[in-house]
């Protein structure tokens, strides 16, 4: 037995302790696996033979893997009923990229302003902006549906881009102001004494230092738009503007769902997310918790 100071009261061999730790590791691996399994399951379902998808007794491990579902989706074998995959891809990419860009530019500016300047009502404005972010998408989508119908923005990706920009600005602003607050303002002032204008100081000093924050908010904004469903399901109607999340519904018929096809499209939908999250994991976590580490 070990006492609190880690001194052996009853001698425990090093090996015993090691085995105990390994056992503990395995237990935690198993726990984490629960969170990871659905990913494997989706990939397996997309690639397994169709008869296995709804088989009973259940088939857990696919007997063979093929990419025919993906080929079907990507249009190798074009049929009447095939899903307008490329329209969805185009719409999803365009709306996500443009809204992320716009939100980053405006949100970074606003974040800097909130962090560096004091002005009347600034705090209230900031809180107001955060509250706006917590308005559920379904509530915003109703008036937008009417307004967009009147202004010709209904079922257009330009309309979606605008909404997503507005939706992601508050969070971008919040993250960026946290970042700018942590950059000592003496750097700014030094640059200004050396003859930079405030604007130049922002561009040359603060912005480069806040790059990790920019990366984190960019990824968040992109994924928010990429995955958004509530608003899109109300204001998009046709392949002209439908994005992936809404497009998933194409796989559902009245009583049946084409799970295999849906899983294939899901895997494709996951690619940018996996790409971003895996590649920028460290920056993402650093970006989110930057303000907390002193």
């Amino acid at each position: 037995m070990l006492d609190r100071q880690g001194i052996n009261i009853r001698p425990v061999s090093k090996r015993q302790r090691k085995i105990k730790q390994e056992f503990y590791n395995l237990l935690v691996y198993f726990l984490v696996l629960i969170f990871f399994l659905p990913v494997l399951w989706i990939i397996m379902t997309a690639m397994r033979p169709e008869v296995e998808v709804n088989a009973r007794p259940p088939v857990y491990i696919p007997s063979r893997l093929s990419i025919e579902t993906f080929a079907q989706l990507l249009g190798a074998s074009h049929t009447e009923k095939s899903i307008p995959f490329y329209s969805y891809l185009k719409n999803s990419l365009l709306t996500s990229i443009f809204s992320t860009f716009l939100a980053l530019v405006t949100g970074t500016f606003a974040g800097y302003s909130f962090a560096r300047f004091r002005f009347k009502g600034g705090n209230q404005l900031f809180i107001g902006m955060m509250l706006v972010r917590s308005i559920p998408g379904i509530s915003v989508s109703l008036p937008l549906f009417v307004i967009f119908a009147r202004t010709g923005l209904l079922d257009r990706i330009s309309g979606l881009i605008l909404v997503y920009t507005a939706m992601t600005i508050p969070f971008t602003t919040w993250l960026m102001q946290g970042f700018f607050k942590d950059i000592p303002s003496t750097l700014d002032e030094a640059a200004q004494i050396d003859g930079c204008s405030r604007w130049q100081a922002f561009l040359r000093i603060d912005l480069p230092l806040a790059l990790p924050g920019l990366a984190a908010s960019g990824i968040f904004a992109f994924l928010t738009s990429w995955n958004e469903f509530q608003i899109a399901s109300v204001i998009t109607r046709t392949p002209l503007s439908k994005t992936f999340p809404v497009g998933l519904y194409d796989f559902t018929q009245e009583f049946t769902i084409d799970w295999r096809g849906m899983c294939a499209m899901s895997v494709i939908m996951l690619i940018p997310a996996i790409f971003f999250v895996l590649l920028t994991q460290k920056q993402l976590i650093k970006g989110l918790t930057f303000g907390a580490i002193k």
Partner: protein
Amino acid sequence: MNQEMNLRLKKDLKKSSKNDRYLSWFMIIPALAVVAVLIVVPMIYSFSLSLTNMNLLKPASTQFIGFRNYIRLFQDEIFWRAFWNTILFMTLAVNVEFILGLFIAQLMFKVTRGQGVIRTAIMAPMMFAPVLVGFQFKWFFNDQVGLVNNLLYSLTGDYQIIPWLIHYPMNLLAILIAEIWMSTPFMVIIFLAGLVSLPTEPFEAASVDGASGWQQFRYITLPLISPFIYIAMVIRSLDLGRAYDLVRIMTGGGPANRSEMIWTYTHRLAITNNRFGMGTAMSFITVAVSFAFVIYLFRQLSKSLQEVY
């Protein structure tokens, strides 16, 4: 000479502070304008619609009816069911996710090998669109071909069709499990970052003084990672409405409104039933509930932070 310089400095300062003021507004206005035009103004317009009996099928006969929509909603049995379902669901979800997140982070922190791999693995649900989670769990909980019933069959050898998504409150539980699966990893990741950033000295000192594991957690870990808790809860509270996607896809609020939540009821009234005026009124109750929840969460959070310190 000195005085003259002072004066010039003062003048410069005044000029720069005036410039600063212009710049501060110049930088803030684009963001505000976009948010105002696309969210705030539509919401005001939406409020005016909520005072009418607008119907999407016959928009010409729209009439001002005052607060009758709201009154009717408060007398509506389904509304109250949706309301209490939502409160129950959100309370359970946020609490379970928080405790589970802290627990898993603590467990993962002590793993000696393969930290990087499990950290990446547990981020998987963060990549899923909520719609995707909804569809996947709808399938997992399907009574005929779902993974959950199949697993139970494989484990017990006794085939039973458990209608997870049909019976109340089992359908709420199924949605809750999906929600917890989707949102817990985010908490884990933030808390883990907090745990990693902690200094080791306080723990060593506490060990020497004979503090138990729980005491160390309660009096050292918790206060030290409280900024991380704050961040996680801020981000979480902004996304409460995300659960809409799950409910809409897994049960659609049904059967017979039994798993209805305020978000799905808004959609049902305004879009499915075409009663747009009523729907917008419902959407404002939804907004009020969201705001109340955010404010409550922050109150609780700052209170518990004070207690911890």
